[in-house]
């Protein structure tokens, strides 16, 4: 059986089921143009205002594959992430992402994320020989982001599985090992 440090288990149990709201991010024309340029999203759907103006949406669409990155950074800038940090938990590598697009995000939209901690799963600890602080990844978190536009309309449902680093657990483990 895989176990995590007792204190960490309690912290994670306390946090499961909590939802926090992020600040807002505006999809400005400049931001959209730079994202399209950097991701090579060259389709007129994303990159051509004249091509999209007469159509159903009247504006360029933000590239859907970039929305999970937006959601992750919105969470990072909000109170949910700060609460994790306060409890000695750092987010590490993302294991997987699943996104369902509900509505297009257009140039000029403003988006926010409501992020819920759905659950956690213990992992085997990795070798911490190279680090005295963070090379200890005891669990993954399952997060759900509901990304909404300025009208409150759901634009994407995103599920992320993210490794965590527990600074507190790593320190406790080091203390036990050296004791």
């Amino acid at each position: 059986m895989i176990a995590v440090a007792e204190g960490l288990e309690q912290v994670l149990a306390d946090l499961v089921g909590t939802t926090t709201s992020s600040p807002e991010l505006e999809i400005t024309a400049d931001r959209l143009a730079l994202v399209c340029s950097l991701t090579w999203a060259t389709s007129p759907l994303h990159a051509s205002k004249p091509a999209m103006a007469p159509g159903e949406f009247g504006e360029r669409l933000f590239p859907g594959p970039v929305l999970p990155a937006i959601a992750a950074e919105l969470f990072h800038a909000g109170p949910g992430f700060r609460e994790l940090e306060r409890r000695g938990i750092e987010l590490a590598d993302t294991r997987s992402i699943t996104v369902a697009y509900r509505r297009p995000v257009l140039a000029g939209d403003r988006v926010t994320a409501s992020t819920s901690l759905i659950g956690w799963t213990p992992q085997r600890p990795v070798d911490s020989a190279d680090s005295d602080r963070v090379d200890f990844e005891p669990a993954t978190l399952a997060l759900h982001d509901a990304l909404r536009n300025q009208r409150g309309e759901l634009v994407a449902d995103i599920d992320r599985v993210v490794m965590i680093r527990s600074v507190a657990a790593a320190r406790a483990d080091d203390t036990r090992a050296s004791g």
Partner: protein
Amino acid sequence: MPELQLGCRSRSLERTIERSEIELLSTLTVPDGADALPRTTGPLGGALLAAVVATLAANTAPLYRELRETHGMRIIAALGMSATFHASVGAGDTVWAETWLQQVRVSASNPARRIATCRDEGRNQNGALVVELVRTLLVQFDRDSGR
């Protein structure tokens, strides 16, 4: 009209990721006024890697141009995407993707349209798998719309 070739792999262009691109991409996804710095100042991993590989596959692999030109396939909307990560990509690494059409089925809600499932494998300059993607698209073929 030729039959759709499911499972035929198509290779994207290669792209070498510069450090400045990683940093700028990270900055662009951070809300204005946020007091936190973007997390992705090191390797390109997670959501941003998925975004780069998905758009690389969709925009530069010949498959989608062939589907448009030979089969009259038009993408109406992206419905979803899933990504499984195997490794991160650092500054100076070169990524490319293999993409293929896995399945095309009639939309249950609109028989004139179809649901296409595309698979992408993102790899680095050593051929190592860095990310696997499944993208679902709502598409329409000219033959279905009588054009």
